[in-house]
């Protein structure tokens, strides 16, 4: 019965996706798609010959380099999805590993497809529906953004890259946002409702808040600065994570009735470490690509500050955990690196190297440490620290643009971060709330104890190894 329900839901979801595809085909059938395939076919044969480079803002060589860098940056952001999958599965229990890997494999795919269907047109709108606030549209090409044979693939579209490169880079970004939420709800969320949430969060919410700044909306008009997405990606993701973790409630056994915290250790520190290094690696593309050209000075400066902030964050968090916890905590050092990276993301183009290490990196790392403990005090269970790393440090990073730059922009920065946080939080809360009311969002107690791998997938992540069932710390208050 339940299974059949799931099947129907699933088919419904597919239907929505299909309608989206169909819709986009219907609407633009004659022009957009035809153009797209036409353009594509001509790319090879005639494109470079036909476009008059002498009239372009940049030389063909420069355009090609710029485009190459953004393509590479897109690949780097892509590999961040593997990073997220590893951090999240490493920091949770072995019994939930298949579930987490499945979620983190689906998210980028759903994210990219949703971005192709409507996200791209909503975020970089050719026409606003509500000016500066909301836009809608279907498909990759089309509309004001892409309307000629060659414009999308040459410097006429943009001195930095082709429309396809642009789409790829932005689609990879979009998908990271839902991944952040995934970490905070791990170990207890039902799979299907979470995937539905992902479709809506990446397909609707992210492009809306994104359009406010990067699509030239109202925040952009106010002078709000967010270089690579401390707010638009991380704070938004963190807000969704907070909503999700609050509505779901903590994992069984995480908090004692007396307020005590019973940590549930992650099952593989090597996986978590692989994840964090891959995220750092990908962040070179995340921040460096957000320069939107291969501009030597600009990109290299951004890469240096990004690296230094990561170091500052990781070192700070490690040292603080050593001093306050008595022993150096690897999981905290890893979180600290991510915190530093999130912190620098709003403005890696301006701080000097000491500000990057100390003022942004180390402070973000410290914030992350105490924030993790703080949310545990509130009994908001966030298995991977997503709320602290992305939410708290995302906001701090957004403010840093003012703190280490033009302090007069502090108000705008705060407003921007708050507006995006609030919107994402409310959106996520409504979606999770509705899902909870209709199909339920939390697995049964038995399934949670046995692990979601068996419950949701009938599959074991490590069938050849003997799991340890004897552990004092599984007890807590079951």
């Amino acid at each position, binding site marked *: 019965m339940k299974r059949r329900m799931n099947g129907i839901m699933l088919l419904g979801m597919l239907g929505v996706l299909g309608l989206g595809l169909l819709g986009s085909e219907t609407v633009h059938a004659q022009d957009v798609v035809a153009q797209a395939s036409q353009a594509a076919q001509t790319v090879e044969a005639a494109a470079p010959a036909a476009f008059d480079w002498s009239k372009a803002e940049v030389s063909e060589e420069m355009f090609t380099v710029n485009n190459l860098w953004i393509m590479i940056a897109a690949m780097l952001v892509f590999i961040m999805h593997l990073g997220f999958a590893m951090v999240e599965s490493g920091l949770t229990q072995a019994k939930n590993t298949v579930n987490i890997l499945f979620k983190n494999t689906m998210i980028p795919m759903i994210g990219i497809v949703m971005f192709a269907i409507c996200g791209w047109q909503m975020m970089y709108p050719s026409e606003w529906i509500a000016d500066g606030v909301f836009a809608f549209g279907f498909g990759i090409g089309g509309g004001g953004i892409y309307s000629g044979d060659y414009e999308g693939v040459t410097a006429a579209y943009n001195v930095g890259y082709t429309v396809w490169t642009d789409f790829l880079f932005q689609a990879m970004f979009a998908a990271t946002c839902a991944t952040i939420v995934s970490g905070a709800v791990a170990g207890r969320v039902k799979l299907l409702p979470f995937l539905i949430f992902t479709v809506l969060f990446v397909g609707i919410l992210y492009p809306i808040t994104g359009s406010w700044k990067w699509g030239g909306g109202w925040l952009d008009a106010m002078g709000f600065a967010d270089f690579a997405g401390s707010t638009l990606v991380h704070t938004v993701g963190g807000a969704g994570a907070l909503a999700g973790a609050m509505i779901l409630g903590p994992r069984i056994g995480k908090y004692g009735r007396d307020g005590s915290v019973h940590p549930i250790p992650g099952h593989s520190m090597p996986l978590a470490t692989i994840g964090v290094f891959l995220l750092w690696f990908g962040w070179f593309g995340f921040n460096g690509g957000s320069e939107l050209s291969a501009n030597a000075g600009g990109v290299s400066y951004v890469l240096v500050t990004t690296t230094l902030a990561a170091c500052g964050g990781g070192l700070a968090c490690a040292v603080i955990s050593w001093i306050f916890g008595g022993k150096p905590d690897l999981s905290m050092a890893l979180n600290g690196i991510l915190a530093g990276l999130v912190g620098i993301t709003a403005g890696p183009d301006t701080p000097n190297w000491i500000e990057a290490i100390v003022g942004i990196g180390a402070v973000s790392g410290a914030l992350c440490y105490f924030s993790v403990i703080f949310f545990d005090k509130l009994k908001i269970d966030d298995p991977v620290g997503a709320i602290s790393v992305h939410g708290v440090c995302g906001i701090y990073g957004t403010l840093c643009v003012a703190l280490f730059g033009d302090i007069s922009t502090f108000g705008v920065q705060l407003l921007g971060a708050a507006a995006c946080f609030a919107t994402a939080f409310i959106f996520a809360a409504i979606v999770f709330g509705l899902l909870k009311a209709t199909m339920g969002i939390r697995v049964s107690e038995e399934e949670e*104890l046995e692990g979601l791998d068996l419950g949701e997938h*009938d*599959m*074991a992540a490590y069938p050849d190894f*003997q799991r340890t*069932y*004897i552990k004092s710390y*599984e*007890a807590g208050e079951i």
Partner: protein
Amino acid sequence: MHMIEAVVKPFVVDKIKAKLAELGIFGCTALECKGFGKQKGHTERYRGARIDVGFVPKVLLKIAVKSEDLDKAIEAIRESAHSNSVGDGKIFVYELGKVVRIRTGETDNDAL
């Protein structure tokens, strides 16, 4: 002296230990094991086909007790492990001929 061997669900181990401690029984040894019983295992799936996994993960607790504590101990275990569902487990008891505490060389009841 008797050895109690109880095959129980993994997550009642802590509860049993706590209960026994109340009775003044502190030592116990736990082994991970797999049970085949009335409780059926589960089905796993892999690449389009089904796998019947017949066993259920259990913990085998070994608790050596003085004979006078035996019944109390059994009762304590039963109480803690009982949930009235298939798979709650079983308790086996046998007599011990000798017990030695390695550190001190004490034997039998003194060693418990």
